[in-house]
Structures are given as C-alpha cells and as structure tokens.
C-alpha cells in the first residue's frame, strides 16, 4: 500500500543546521557540516505575554513551522497540522518532578499548562489564529515516520494539504542520562494532494522490512541516530540533491518506511 503527496515548503532547524536552505547545502555536500548547538529564535508571532512563557519545544516547533509555511506561501489558518514529537518539554517535566519530590509539592500552574504534549500545537494555533484541526502524536524514536504516516493519510484520504512538524528537544539532568537526546532538532513540511507552483518533489511511501539507510557523513549519521526527528535526514538529503531517488527511513522495531522521491 502506497501513500503519496507533494512536498511544498520545508523548514529545518537543528545542531549545525540553521534553516532548510542551509541544511540543503550541507546535505548535498556544497557546504561542510559544522556541528554547533541549536539556536532557537524567540517566536515573534506570539503576543509578548505568551512569548515569555514558551520553552524550547514551542520555540523549535514554531520556528520550523513558520519556515515551511512561509516558503510554501501557505495560509496557516487553512492548513490542518500534525505535530509529532518523542517527548513534551523536558525542562518543564524536570521542574514538575523536582517540585513533586519536595514536601511542599508546589507545582507552577503555568508550567503545568505548558507540560502537555500538545503545547506546541496549542501555541501554533494561538499564534496563527488557525482553528483547523491539529493532531499531536508520539511514537518515541519512531515519531517522525508516525507523523509522516498520519499526515500522508490526511492528504490521501481527505485530499487536503497538511503541515507536518516533527521535533525533539533534550531533557536536562538527571533525566538526560536516561534519555540522552543531545540537542533540539525540528523538521517541518507542507504536504499537498496535488502539484502546485511551490511543489519541490513528489513523495511515495511504503512500509518495508528492509534495513534503513545511514548517512555517509559520520557526524550526520550520529545525529540521525541520536535525535528521533533526524531519522528524516536520508529523505532530506534526497530533497537537497534534487534528483530522483529512494531512501529507507527507520520506523518501528518491526518495520521501516521506504520513500521514493521524484523532483518537480
């Protein structure tokens, strides 16, 4: 069974990857990969009061969602979204668990509100004024493909364009030792049922038993293995090169996802 869509705008932000054009230059070999901590912009689209409350998860997700929708020229108020992440805000989770371990057990109400897994989708909706549906998913290390599958079924079944946002951030110590995600990385793409002026490529996805592809650059391969959203790197590499090709992306223990890319 094959799921198909056209990929329009793309957004990327991660360690040593500053934007989609920059990531494309790195992934196609035009520029070297230089590892550097992810710098997350303050979301200017939020009102000042909300802006102050946002943590790294929200900043990351909004940054890549803005890049993808802007480059696709897509109106966010018309675009349903799929937000997929292997975890919610790790820093907030740490603060809450620390507070609950004390005798006083004073949990901050704002932290609690922002501890939900759908915090980024909530702020995206508030920032853009979009009342369209947003599906917020988690499949641990398989979260990128889980999000892509859900987005592709929306395109295939409901024939509607969808914004996919896949993103992961780190936990602080002591949780970091148990879940060692090194830094923040996010990928967003606008998927449409038909080809339009902004279409970069057609994507066809099937589930497979094949082993997944790795990245030939050792640092990018380390990134692919360390951050769940970076499992998209072999797909992004194909899109960066701009040639037809096929990549097998890691998914669940029992299956992988094969993506065929045809540039537009």
């Amino acid at each position, binding site marked *: 069974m094959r799921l198909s869509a056209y990929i329009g705008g793309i957004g990327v932000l991660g360690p040593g990857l500053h934007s989609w054009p920059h990531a494309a230059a790195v992934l196609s070999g035009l520029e070297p990969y230089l590892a550097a901590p992810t710098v997350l912009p303050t979301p200017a689209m939020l009102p000042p009061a909300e802006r102050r409350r946002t943590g790294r998860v929200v900043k990351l997700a909004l940054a890549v969602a803005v890049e993808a929708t802007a480059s696709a020229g897509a109106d966010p108020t018309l675009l349903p979204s799929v937000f997929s992440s292997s975890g919610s805000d790790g820093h907030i989770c740490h603060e809450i668990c620390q507070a609950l*371990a004390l005798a006083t057990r004073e*949990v901050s109400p704002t932290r609690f509100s922002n501890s*939900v897994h759908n915090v980024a989708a909530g702020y995206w909706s508030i920032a853009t004024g979009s009342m369209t*549906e947003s*599906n917020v998913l988690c499949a*641990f290390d398989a979260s990128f493909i889980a999000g892509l599958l*859900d987005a592709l079924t929306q395109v295939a079944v409901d024939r509607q364009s969808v914004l996919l946002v896949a993103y992961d951030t780190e936990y602080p110590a002591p949780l970091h030792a148990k879940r060692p995600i090194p830094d923040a990385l996010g990928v967003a793409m606008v998927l449409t049922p038909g080809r339009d002026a902004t279409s970069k490529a057609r994507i066809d996805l099937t589930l497979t038993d094949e082993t997944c592809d790795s990245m030939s650059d050792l640092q990018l391969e380390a990134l692919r293995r360390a951050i769940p959203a970076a499992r998209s790197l072999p797909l992004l590499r194909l899109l960066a090169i701009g040639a037809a090709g096929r990549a097998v992306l890691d998914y669940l223990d029992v299956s992988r996802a094969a993506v065929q890319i045809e540039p537009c």
Partner: protein
Amino acid sequence: MKPLLLAEYTATSCIGRGVTPTLSALMEQRSGLARCEFETVKIDTHIGEVPGVDAQRLPKDLQIFNCRNNRLAELGVQQDGFFDAVQAAAARWGRRRVGVFIGTSTAGIMQTELAYRARDAVSGALPPSFEYGPTHNSFSVADYLRHRCRLEGPAVVASSACASSAKVFGSARRMIEAGLIDAALVGGTDSLCLTTLYGFHSLQLSSPAPCRPFDAARDGISIGEAAAFVLLERVPENLDADAVLLYGVGESSDAYHMSAPHPEGLGAKRAMQAALTAASLEPGDIDYINLHGTGTPSNDRSESQAVTSIFGPTTPCSSTKGATGHTLGASGALEAVISVLAIQNGLMPGGVHTTRVDPNLTAHYIKENRRARVLRVLSNSFGFGGTNCSLIFGRAG
C-alpha cells in the same frame, strides 16, 4: 466519511471493570468518586480510582513496561474478552494489518515522579532500575499494547491532553480508509499521578467535592483514571442492525488560550459541526449528547453555548464525569464506550451529583436517566491547548 464498525469494545474506570458493571452503575446512577487517599497525595479533593490497579501483574517478558499506566492498560484489555478478540482480528487480518492508536495525557509519568524521590544523594542520578522509554514516555502505553497483543501494524499515541483518545478515532479512520490496515486497536489509558492531581489543584480547577457538571454551584473537576478500548474495522457486507458504527469525527482548535476554553465555545462548535458534516447528519438526527462536561465554571459555560448554538435547547445531554471522574486522556475512549452502551440499551444516562442545573446554561441537561430509543449519540472531548474533538456513533440499522 465512510462509517466504521465498532467490532468489540471494553471500558474500565472507577465505576467498573468491563461493560457489564459500567452499565449497571450508569443504570443505578452510581458514582465511583471517593475522597482522595491516593499514594501520598494530600489534597482535599475527590478522585475516581480504579481498585486493584497496583495488584495487576504484567507478563514476565514485559516487566520493563511495569508502571501504573500499563498495569491499568493490562487490566482494561483483559475485560470483556477484548484481548482474545484482538488476537482473533490479528489472525484474521494478519499482525501487520492491525494498527494501534492510543490516547494518553501523562502515560506512566508517575514512574518518574517516584524516581525523583529516590535520586542518588551525591550525584543526583535517578535509580538504575528506572526505565524512561517503556514507562514515562507517552508512547509507552501503545508500545506495551502492541507487544502484549503481538501486533505489528503502525502504532502511535495521540497526546492532545483531554481530547487524546477521541482524536485516535480520526487517525485510525484515515489509516483504514487509506488501506494501510484492516483493523485498529483504538482507545485510551490515563492513570492517576501526582503531576495531574497537583497540577489541576495549582490551577484551582479541581473541586474539593465530587464534581457536579452543569450545576449552578459547580466548582471544578474530579480526576479519574480509565482504560477503554475499541476494535475498529471496515463495515462488513452483512451487518447486524444492532451493531454500532462510528459515523463522524470532527476536530478543531480554539486558537484562544492554553488552559481556558474559548468563552463562546467557537472551537467546540466547529468540531461538532465538522462531525455532523462528516456523518452527513443534521443536528436533529442526534438523540443524545455525551458532553465533555468537566464541571469547571468556564468549560461547562462555553460547551453549553456551543451545544445550544447548533442543537438548540431541547436535545438531551449530560456529562458522565460525575460518575467516572474526568479520566483526562482516556475520557474520549471511555465516553465512546458509554455512548455505545447508551445506544444498545436505550439509555440516556442522567448526570450524577448535579442537584440544580445552572439556569444560565441553556443546553438541555438531564439529571435523571431516560429510557428511550437512542439511534445516534454525539460525544465531545476538549483539551488544554484548545484542542477539540467530537465523535458521532449510531446504530447500524
């Protein structure tokens, strides 16, 4: 949308393990809420605790998943022959052709809360026995169930706060319709933990008394826990008229506030309208509405406005959270099963604990059980982040 068959279903909450005691409790208007004596929690509130969760054992080879949330999922999946029905579906369709779609808000975060009490005095490290992925991570409950039921299809958790296990019906619907799978294990599991008990308390959203949805004196929620599951399949050619189908899924976002609903319920209205459109039904086709009805002043006010704006003031509606408590990420699936029981038994369950319906709420809230033919039910689930989902269930014939 193409309707789907609810081939099997089960629910476990504080009002009962499985559908038979759940139906009895609804028939008798019995509440499972009791004063909070959970763990070391010292909050003046009522909760809906499922008895025996911590006595539940997981299979030997799945001990890595051991946490309260997965113990509750195991307890839930063993009721009503549901586990065996899933095995039969896997045999019929193939293990790769059955997907797993589970809603939860906090999964097994309590395991991390406990680990933070046992940090190494010198290094601050969490205890070596603590496992993050199979317990705390949101996906853990779907991962437990796919291992437990040996399913190899696509698997995912939806975590949209209190709309989580309603929204999984949408994901499963799309994947079945796209032809990627033939059946879906859909549901929700959320268990009591300190994060939600102290978190809602900090927001002053939990009531000291058992919650009283739509009451003039309502003052907050009662947190509960539940595991509820449905086996969703395509509608077969030969269908029993008594079978219950999923006719519509409608979703929206409020674009308003992280923890407060839109004051006029615009997002809720949009979700209900989308569900009616998906089901090709008119408001008058709905016989009973199972409200989100949490019992906070603002939630019930905005939901009542949204309901009245579409259905007018006569469609009977109620919240079953006075009986079960607000089971958060499991409430969508729990109330889906309650909607099925309403249809199959001709029962509109009256809202428990509500004594005087708020005269400012114009929706037709029922306090007493009604026995009548119930063909179609709309069930609402709304959550933090302004996420809304409405489901429509109905008799096949």
